[in-house]
């Protein structure tokens, strides 16, 4: 394997990591900062992608589609927060798991009801399509570069919001003691609705952005959801920096594991078996990584120490 290919694969891993972060960003807010286990996060991701596909289909504008994704998912998020989620903050994680599990069912089948069972069309706009040549001769799709930039921007924005602004501080205070922050005069309910909507909007945006290079279909959110949880937990709940680093680690592990493990197994087995066995272990790699990180540091890389 040539050095340039290895370099390219490392870049792919990092890129995949940033994309994971983009998908996990909204969840970081909701799960990491507000402390709510929202299994329906993947559904909001799906809502964004469907809204984008519908608007792109009707208007032909990718930018409008992104706006639509953000708005639709944020509205759906706000609605869900007002009707369901707000009754769950003071409950234990179990109830949150069940309620948001129920929301997945409602969202998935509801979307199918509205949009039918067939995957929808959403593609990269022409001004972002095609590869560019990077130094070293690596050909890299422009759209993916744009995703990296956007992912990093979102990471920075979120980090500033949570750690530097008063709203961010108040949200974290609410996570510690909701009753108390309200008793100090902060309208924490409204704040939580806003933040939930923001998290949902980010999920929707990610759904649209990533949907353009993947498939827009019912159920697209669930695999993402698990990956996003993995990312956040590895990084440490509540830490934006942790989520970013966790995402990069997962991206690298997944990409490089998928490439090198089969190669590694070829050293002791015939190619067909090696490819199959190597890939089998590669698909377990990120979960092994997660378990290893948690065994080593039980609250993730940057989580608050217990």
């Amino acid at each position: 394997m040539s050095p340039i290919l290895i370099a390219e694969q490392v870049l792919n891993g990092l890129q995949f990591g940033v994309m994971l972060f983009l998908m996990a960003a909204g969840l970081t807010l909701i799960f990491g900062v507000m402390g709510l286990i929202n299994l329906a996060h993947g559904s909001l991701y799906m809502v964004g992608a469907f809204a984008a596909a519908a608007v792109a289909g009707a208007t032909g504008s990718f930018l409008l589609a992104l706006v639509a994704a953000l708005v639709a998912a944020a509205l759906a998020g706000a609605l869900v927060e007002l009707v369901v989620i707000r009754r769950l903050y003071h409950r234990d994680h179990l109830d949150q798991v069940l309620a948001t599990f129920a929301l997945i069912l409602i969202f998935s089948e509801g979307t199918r009801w509205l949009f039918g069972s067939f995957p929808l069309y959403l593609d990269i706009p022409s001004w972002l399509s095609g590869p560019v040549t990077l130094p070293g001769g690596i050909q890299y799709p422009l759209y993916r570069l744009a995703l990296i930039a956007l992912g990093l921007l979102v990471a920075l924005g979120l980090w500033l919001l949570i750690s530097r602004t008063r709203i961010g501080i108040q949200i974290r205070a609410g996570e510690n003691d909701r009753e108390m922050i309200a008793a100090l005069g902060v309208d924490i309910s409204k704040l939580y609705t806003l933040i939930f909507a923001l998290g949902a909007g980010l999920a929707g945006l990610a759904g649209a952005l990533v949907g353009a290079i993947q498939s827009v279909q019912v159920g697209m959110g669930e695999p993402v959801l698990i990956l996003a949880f993995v990312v956040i937990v590895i990084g440490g709940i509540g830490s934006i920096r942790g989520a970013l680093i966790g995402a990069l680690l997962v991206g690298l592990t997944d990409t490089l594991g998928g490439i090198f493990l089969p190669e590694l197994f070829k050293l002791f087995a015939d190619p067909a078996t090696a490819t199959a066995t190597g890939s089998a272990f590669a698909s377990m790699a990120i979960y092994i990584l997660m378990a290893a990180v948690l065994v080593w540091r039980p609250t993730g890389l940057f989580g608050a120490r217990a």
Partner: protein
Amino acid sequence: QTKVGMITTLSGGGASLGIDIRDGFMLAIEDDGRDGLEIIIEDDQRKPDVAVQIADEMIQSEKVDILTGIVWSNLAMAVVPSATAQGKFYLSTNAAPAQLAGRGCNPLYFSVSYQNDNLHEAAGAYAKSEGYTNPFIMAPNYPAGHDSLNGFKRFFEGELAGEIYTELGQTDYAAEIAQIRASGADSVFFFLPGGMGISFLKQYADSGVELPVLGPAFSFDQAILQAVGDAALGVKNGSNWSKDLDNEANAAFVAAFEEKYDRLPSLYAAYGYDTANLMLSALDVAEPSDQEAFRAALAAADFDSVRGDFAFDTNQHPIQDIYVREVIKEGDIYTNKIVGTAIEDRSSAYVDECSM
């Protein structure tokens, strides 16, 4: 009075396939319009245990005579052996795993669609005939993926630039595309059903790699082509059916399907339609309660298949021509047209293992 139980996927991610099977099947049944035939349809949610439960219900409570409809191989493996063990006919509208074509073949089991490997074999045969010398081949790491690459290799028999198994459900293929680019391959064969194929094709089209792409029909069928869009144009795929197949039955089917459901039929709809017609033709001759006679009537395959010539081999899987299609755009609609025949009168690789 004959009862038929259809178990298929009508909710969740894979619902579009099951819906097409159902719609194709019901089109034939309603056209026929005979009395004394009852069809019961249930959703398996793409879960094997649910499929088994429904099969039990249909057999034990509804007392059906014939089962049909399953889309996925793993669900078929869960249902078919126990259904045939309980003396029920099973007519496959899609899934036809190797085990059931070879050692596990059964007098009560017919596959109307194909044997799972067929369309991959066609792609392999086509690659060879096009003179490709080192294709790069890939499929997800699960049994159907392994069968796929084996099917391709069975008819290709040459050097490969690379052979990889991806993760089932994977959505990002940047790493694989980089490997393809670096491999020096002259063509790419892939089997990535459902959303995986959509993702791969979009990303491949955007990557600047311009090698010709081949695959089985699944990733280029009517149900998902609209979601892939331009990225699929020109891709060659192996299929035993296409909407432009030139025979009377097919023309009638395509027209009737479009008329009734206001969309183009897919491969799965065609299988559903054929299955229903096969069953109706057998019911004209015998009752399912007379197992021997009904089985003989099915095996005779005395119906007008939308695929043209159609016969069953001894393992009760079809002998049929398999074509190569190319993805084209007709007006606003992406669809396929036949560009050649990959293998003629193809049966299946496992027929000798079947002791029937």
